[in-house]
């Protein structure tokens, strides 16, 4: 809009041409003309430059929080009653991803081993990826950002697919294989609930890594980006399933059919 308005006057048009010329020059020289010095040397006084940002964001945020708190009340249901189990009973929302996993496999695997491995893996990232390349750039590079997009879509689609398949065949039966081994072959419960489930998860991650490697030929950092994105997205996808799509008896249902508000 502003550009259109400016175009009507000749000097402004010249200024735009000048700006284009400078941009082209920047492209050719590979760096911005406007940079006074190198980024790393360009320093400012914390007071006021940083303190102002902090103060303004604190005030804005406190404002939003206050308005939200005036408008929306925190939930308070009836008094706790150990005799009366609500259906469904749900953990706090940020653990509902674990509760969702729990429906599909052994409780110890879903609720303790998987999250422990995930957190341990996350904590270990800096000891695997030590190259300083790409620090300070969101997603490292345009390739990195493509990998993020690919991983996010892959994780969402595959995870949703796996949950739906399990739903059709029978939730917690490891797509029927676990049930077959247990019921027809007399295998103990842990064969399906732990071994098979762990294999399915590891296999899915393996397939994912093969895809990423095949498509992107990633560096180590980029492979870790793919895996971390997988975790990040899986956390929310599972949590959304748990909060919004699990109704009575933890059956899949639509959010508007949920009997109980969860916060």
């Amino acid at each position: 809009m502003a550009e259109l308005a400016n175009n009507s006057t000749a000097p402004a048009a010249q200024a735009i041409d000048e700006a284009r010329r400078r941009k082209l020059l920047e492209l050719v020289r590979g760096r911005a003309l406007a940079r006074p010095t190198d980024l790393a040397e360009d320093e400012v006084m914390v007071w006021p430059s940083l303190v102002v940002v902090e103060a303004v964001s604190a005030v804005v945020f406190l404002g939003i929080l206050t308005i939200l708190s005036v408008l929306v009340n925190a939930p308070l249901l009836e008094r706790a009653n150990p005799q009366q189990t609500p259906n469904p009973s749900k953990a706090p929302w940020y653990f509902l991803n674990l509760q969702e996993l729990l429906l599909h496999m052994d409780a110890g695997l879903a609720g303790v081993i998987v999250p422990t491995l995930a957190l341990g893996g996350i904590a270990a990232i800096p000891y695997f990826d030590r190259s300083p390349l790409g620090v300070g750039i969101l997603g490292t590079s345009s390739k990195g950002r493509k990998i993020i997009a690919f991983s996010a879509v892959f994780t969402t689609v595959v995870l949703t697919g796996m949950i739906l398949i399990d739903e059709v065949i029978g939730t917690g039966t490891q797509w029927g294989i676990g049930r077959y081994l247990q019921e027809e072959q007399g295998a103990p419960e842990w064969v399906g609930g732990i071994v098979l489930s762990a294999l399915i998860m590891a296999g899915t991650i393996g397939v994912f890594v093969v895809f990423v490697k095949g498509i992107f030929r990633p560096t180590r950092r980029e492979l870790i980006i793919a895996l971390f994105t997988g975790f990040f997205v899986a956390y929310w996808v599972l949590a959304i399933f748990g909060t919004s799509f699990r109704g009575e008896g933890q059956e899949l249902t639509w959010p508007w059919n949920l009997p109980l508000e969860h916060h």
Partner: protein
Amino acid sequence: MRREQTLADRITGSAVWRSVVRHGYPDTQRNQALIIASNVFLHIHPVKIKRYATKVTYTFCLGGLSFFMFLVLTMTGVLLMFYYIPSESQAYESMLAIEGSVSFGQLMRNMHRWSAQGMVIAVFLHMGRVFYTGSYKPPREFNWVIGVLLLVTTFLLSFTGYLLPWDQLAYWAITVGSNIGGAAPIVGPQVNRILLGDLQIGQSTLIRFYTLHVIFLPLIAAFLMAVHFWRIRKDGGISGPL
């Protein structure tokens, strides 16, 4: 040339004022440096930082917001503590009282609840920001590990607070949650027993969760944050393009 002394000049020139504030109005670099260095709350910052570190689109303020929410939670939490009774027979009634008869009680509770949810989200997203900008790379490895511990502490703070209202939501969410913990291989039953202090959720659970929630975990979080913030400075300020 002498200019007339205003009231403000007289106040800021007085012995009392100068005993408290040891710098002049921060409109010169010297005073801007002094205000940071001589104020215990501000001296968490260096005097100068890289320009890119002030860009909102780099940090999205997420670490700062997490900390800010921790402060809001501490303040509203202390106010709630004046009225909340951690007893099986009175907890729920005290919640009703906070909502119904304490001035601004409902507002305090709402602010506490919503910023608790907000903090979990902010900390999680902050981790994402740090990850995607590669800010965990050396020399910041250890601060990343401290961060993971902060994430766990945040979850635990939220989880222990969840039980306190002693309503159906609280009771059964914690039942489900601690059953998940109790499913741990080998040590599961012990973990469950330590969490609940009993065979099922009751008075001993409530007092455990309460103590963890109002003093133990906040102290842990404050301790970890102190290390976290100190480390940011020791690692050369927040990361940036090379």
